[in-house]
């Protein structure tokens, strides 16, 4: 079965591109930040530099790692699901569930291993650039050399492989099982755990002093966990909302009925969307509050302070861009594999325009749900941070940042779904419903 796994990867490299990309990006982000640990631990680094590097790697690298874990896992889940037909075929040819599991997990491990290996080179460069930024801002002594060592490698490979293998294992187990009542108890526990831990983490912000260097960490951690919890919960929310949604026309009719049925699967697509909105909201606002607080503390606005602001925004920007790419990646994967479904809609009498209308209506509902859940998760992190860091409850910046995030989320969701669907609709309907060769 492992041989079959490797062969199926080699024969169809295209279908694994999404998995490869997410493993690559995930490993890149994790290794870039964690190489700061290696740099700080190298001999001859002065104490101040080492502390700055360790804090940065611990805070941003820490929640960045958690983020990568969930983002890679959700992409993998979407990718395994789209292969249900192939797995049914293998099951019919006599593959046992255990063999299927070994095959899918084997594939995931092989592909994510390749992704992580490819990420080493760029991560070394990325780490150097990051260190350079710290040195430019005067946070780290210019004499410190970048080193890329065991911490970066172990965390990069470990997180990527664990997320990929774990998601593949869970997804194939779910795909192989008949629908049975009482399923989803594990999911309920997971949802509860994510929400509880998230709430606890967010609340623990209050235990810190206003100037603590790690003050950002619990807020960001908490927001990620809350976002994950909301994503797991989103199937139920979607079902409830869709019941009374007045989407007009044949496309709206079909979109509501399809989504109510696919609500469970949609939570896989909502995960990166909610994570993106949540992470972008919490990190950008927290950073803005931090910058304003530093400014208000009376420290003269030196070149160093300017640099520091740039550095922080760069670091946060990496995380936000990563989330956005993962969102596009999993939406692309989720839409591509609906080619056959779009074909059947067309054979039942839907014009290509109506099919795209269905996709647009679905994207709209997804965007609204994702933005609402993500914003709540983000606010949950922002409010405690702002309360502790300043005296107000909400950041006194306008809604500009948030509107920007919403615009990006909506544009990414709509553009990816519609462009992918348009390509799927361009093949003749009769060919689109034929089983993939």
């Amino acid at each position, binding site marked *: 079965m492992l041989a079959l796994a490797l062969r199926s990867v080699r024969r169809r490299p295209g279908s694994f591109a999404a998995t490869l990309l997410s493993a690559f990006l995930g490993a890149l982000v994790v290794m870039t930040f964690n190489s700061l640990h290696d740099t700080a631990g190298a001999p001859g680094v002065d104490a101040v530099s080492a502390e700055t590097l360790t804090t940065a790697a611990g805070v941003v690298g820490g929640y960045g790692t958690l983020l990568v874990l969930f983002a890679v896992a959700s992409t993998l889940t979407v990718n395994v699901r789209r292969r249900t037909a192939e797995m049914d075929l293998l099951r019919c040819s006599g593959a046992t569930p255990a063999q299927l599991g070994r095959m899918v997990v084997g594939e995931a491990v092989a592909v994510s291993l390749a992704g992580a290996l490819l990420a080493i080179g760029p991560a070394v460069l990325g780490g150097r650039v990051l260190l350079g930024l710290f040195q430019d801002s005067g946070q780290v002594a210019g004499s410190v050399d970048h080193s890329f060592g065991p911490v970066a490698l172990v965390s990069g490979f470990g997180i990527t492989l664990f997320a990929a293998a774990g998601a593949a294992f869970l997804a194939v187990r779910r795909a192989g099982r008949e629908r049975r009542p009482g399923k989803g108890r594990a999911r309920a526990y997971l949802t509860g755990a994510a929400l509880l831990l998230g709430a606890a983490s967010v609340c623990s912000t209050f235990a810190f002093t206003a100037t603590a260097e790690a003050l950002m960490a619990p807020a960001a951690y908490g927001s990620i966990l809350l976002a994950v919890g909301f994503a797991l919960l989103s199937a139920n929310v979607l079902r409830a909302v869709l019941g009374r949604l007045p989407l007009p026309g044949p496309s709206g009719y079909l979109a509501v*009925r399809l989504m109510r049925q696919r609500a469970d699967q949609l939570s896989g697509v909502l995960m990166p969307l909610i994570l993106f909105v949540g992470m972008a909201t919490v990190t950008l606002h927290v950073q803005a509050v931090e910058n304003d607080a530093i400014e208000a503390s009376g420290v003269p606005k030196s070149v160093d302070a300017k640099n520091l602001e740039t550095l922080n925004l760069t670091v946060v920007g990496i995380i936000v861009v990563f989330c956005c790419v993962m969102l596009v990646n999993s939406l692309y994967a989720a839409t591509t594999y609906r080619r056959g479904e779009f074909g059947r809609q067309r054979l039942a009498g839907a014009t290509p325009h109506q099919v795209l209308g269905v996709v647009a209506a679905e994207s709209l509902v997804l965007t609204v749900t994702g933005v609402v859940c993500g914003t709540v998760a983000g606010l949950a992190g922002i409010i405690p941070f702002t309360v502790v860091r300043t005296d107000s409850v909400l950041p006194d910046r306008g809604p500009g940042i948030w509107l920007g995030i919403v615009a990006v989320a909506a544009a990414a969701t709509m553009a990816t779904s519609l462009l992918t669907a348009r390509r799927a609709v361009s093949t003749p309907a009769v060919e689109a419903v034929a089983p993939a060769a």
Partner: protein
Amino acid sequence: MTMIRRRDRRASERGTGSAEALRLVKVSRTYGSGDRAVTALDEVTFSLARGTFTAVMGPSGSGKSTLLQCAAGLDRPDSGIVVVDGTEMTGGGEAELTRFRRSRVGFVFQQYNLLDTLTVAQNTVLPLKLARRPVDRARVREILTAVGLGDRLGHRPDELSGGQRQRVAIARALVTEPSVILADEPTGALDTRSAREVLLLLQDAVRVHGRTVVMVTHDPVAASYADSVLFLADGRIAGEMRRPTADAVAERLAHLGDDALTGV
């Protein structure tokens, strides 16, 4: 450019005005190009009267499915004319062809092509919803009861047997009251009992509802349910048989190569 050209009758007369349900004139379709070109249809001409049940038979690769897809507007002929219910299909984009098809043609596929995410009732009314036509619930229930699924309205396709799924597909093809129902190997994936039920339903569509049914099949028993059989070989019509029996059809199929040489 006018996509759909009305010939000699107004839209209100559609469905009653023409004695011909389907006419193909010199329809050709070639796949690929150069040395590897395969001629699936070679100037096929025939016409079918309203209220008939015709089976199209021929060996694999004889162009049966292409014929059906060209007649349905799912595939575009390279040349020739397709006239459904007195109205000529003149190409245009997929949207035009879809609108043409969903008001005049019902299609039944070998692999059912139902949407797994919709219930039996939702799958059945889907063509009406897509065409923004009013849904008569009582009528839908009546049709589904007629195909033996009156108690399964809320089931999903994956909870049904193959034969039941095909009966949903037939109900879906009947619900828009099309003048022509095209069926591509509708019994190809079914056991003999389910196949017989499906064939009887197609017969009913002709005898009771007055539809015109064209069915592609390679099974002489299935073909024997039709009023007549058109034989196809190498993309050409290679003969016709009225009031077919399974044995006569099988006999004719075995000697189809001889007929193809002379043409019709």
